[in-house]
């Protein structure tokens, strides 16, 4: 996971800081922010493979709104939802909106790592597919200039 970069969004700073530290200790490029707004702002400057997002955050943007924004601007970024709450409705809504999966707090780091691995694989496969499609396209229409490349 050399180029693996993760953004953790949670308003509970004790949780946030510790998780970030632990992931960084495992050589994962991790950034932690405490609100949805900050997450959007950070993502504008840096590219992340996976976002770990707490669904329930008081004040400002809540998890679902943040998810919507992230998916709008960065459709290839996978989002893992975190919830301390049994609220299925929100979790299911999140899944419908393109979240990769959801996890119930408290989480063990080992479990989280497994999920992160899955998310990264999915993202990777997705990217591969897009790359292949692009190459095919290139072969079929050699003169065409790619416009979608902006994202990358």
């Amino acid at each position, binding site marked *: 996971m050399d180029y693996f970069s993760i953004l953790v969004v949670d308003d509970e700073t*004790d949780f946030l800081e510790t998780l970030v530290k632990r992931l960084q200790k495992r050589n994962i490029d991790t950034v932690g922010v405490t609100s949805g707004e900050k997450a959007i702002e950070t993502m504008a400057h840096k590219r992340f493979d996976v976002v770990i997002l707490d669904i329930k955050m008081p004040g400002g943007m809540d998890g679902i709104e943040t998810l919507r924004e992230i998916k709008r601007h960065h459709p290839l970024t996978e989002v893992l939802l975190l919830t301390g709450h049994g609220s299925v409705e929100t979790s299911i809504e999140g899944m419908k909106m393109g979240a990769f999966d959801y996890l119930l707090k408290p989480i063990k780091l080992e479990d989280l790592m497994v999920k992160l691995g899955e998310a990264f694989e999915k993202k990777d496969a997705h990217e591969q597919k897009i790359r292949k499609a692009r190459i095919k396209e290139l072969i079929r229409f050699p003169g065409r200039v790619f416009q979608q490349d902006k994202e990358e």
Partner: protein
Amino acid sequence: MKEGLYRNLQRKIIIWTLLVSLAPLLILGATLYYQFENTCRGKTKEQISYRAQAQAEALDLFLKERTAILNAMADTHSFEHMIEEKNLARIFDVMNARAGAFVDLGIIDSQGNHRAYIGPYDLRGRNYLDQAWFDEVMIKGYYKSDVYMGFRQQPHFIIAVRRHENQQAWILRATIDPNRLEEIVRSAQIGRTGDAYLVNREGIYQTRPRFGGDVLGKANLDTDQFGGRVTVIEIEDPDGEERLYAGSWLNDNKWLLVINQQPLELLSRLFALRQIEIFIISLGVVGIVITTILTTRLAINRLRKNDQELVELNAQLVQSDKLAALGKMAAGVAHEINNPLAVILQKTGWMEDLLEEEDFSQSENAEEFRESIAKIEEHVERARKVVHNMLGYARKMEPRLEDVDVNDTINQTVTLLENHARINNIDIQVDLEESIPIIASDQAQLQQVFLNLLTNAIDAIGSSGSIDVVSRRVDDRIVVNISDDGPGLSEEALRKIFDPFYTTKGAGKGTGLGLWVSHSIIEKMGGRINVKNNSDKGATFTVGIPIVIPEKK
């Protein structure tokens, strides 16, 4: 208390229904009866009055005939001719041949001497000068006596007419057989109790009455009560019986024809009718009473049953409400607990991470730290499990709909537990109805419910016993009964068994969430789960699952 209310209600309904339905029947019956009796009474009076009048006319005619023939004889024969007994005998024969009822015939001169006589008694030579009737007949020209014994000691009466001949007055006098009179009177008498007789103004019998008296006896009757031509009066006998009297004065106003009758005898047909009426009314009354009581009882029983069902339904609603509120609270509590737990777990994880670093691992107490951290993590895990269990159903509130064979699900669950049951010497008997349809439901959740209930049953029995699992289709539900022969449930347990954290198992053995979660799952499916003690031994859980036919894909 409640029972009293029902009884009271039942009594009120019965009383009012009976009052309202019986009153018109009885009033109608009574009215009909009295109306009819009045009519009959009137008719009876009319009849008896008519008979008295007709019979009096017959008597008048009889007397008039006798008087007329006597007058005719006196007018057509001279005194001289008459006193020849040979001639008188001939005249007597003619009179009896034409009119009859003459007993004897006599001629009396103006001095009162009986000059000639034809008849069974020798009355010749007797003098009547000082007798009252002699004066009367001499003055008025006609006389009819009351009945008397006279010289012959036989009841009789006489008719006498006076004749003037050559400045001389003489009297033709005849005795009339009162038996003939009596025959006419008698013919007016009818029935077993009817009587008919003649009395004079003083109430002396002129003919023999049928009951209680003889000729010349005194009748217990005040003749002044009878005026005009025919009078009908009601008199009560000494023995308390009512009698109807009709009296008709004869033309000479001296004799009164009396007909009497117990009106009841004439009313006998009415009484028969009354018996029928009473019988019909009684039949109606009995019918109404029985019907009213039966229908009221039926209605009250139905009401009682409905009330009971309502009470049970209310209890179930209260239970559902309570559990729903607890569910909401549990979700809130879970959030508040899970967040701190998450922090704790990350912190301990971080500590573990740090312990891995070299300098720490050299530390003397590194092992102690590691152990403590492991313990903390273990207990966080324990707390997490409780919360997860609590939310077990909440996380999956929407049951996934798939094709579920309830019988299969039961069999699978039983297979899962078979070993566990066998170890405890518990026999699980399965009786499944084959025709149960495949339904659209959530198999995992349903299995969770059966698992909870069966585990519960096994735990309740402890060791040695049997469990019966029965599935049946009842209307639009699949009903699964799971009964054990364990000790059954206490009053308190029956009430609280579906509450969260309620457990009868020892500390640490059960969370008290299994049945609560089962209850929630079944309720979410639109079904119902309840429990009751068996009449003999143990308890039975009943799960009702609505039959939802899967959509064809």
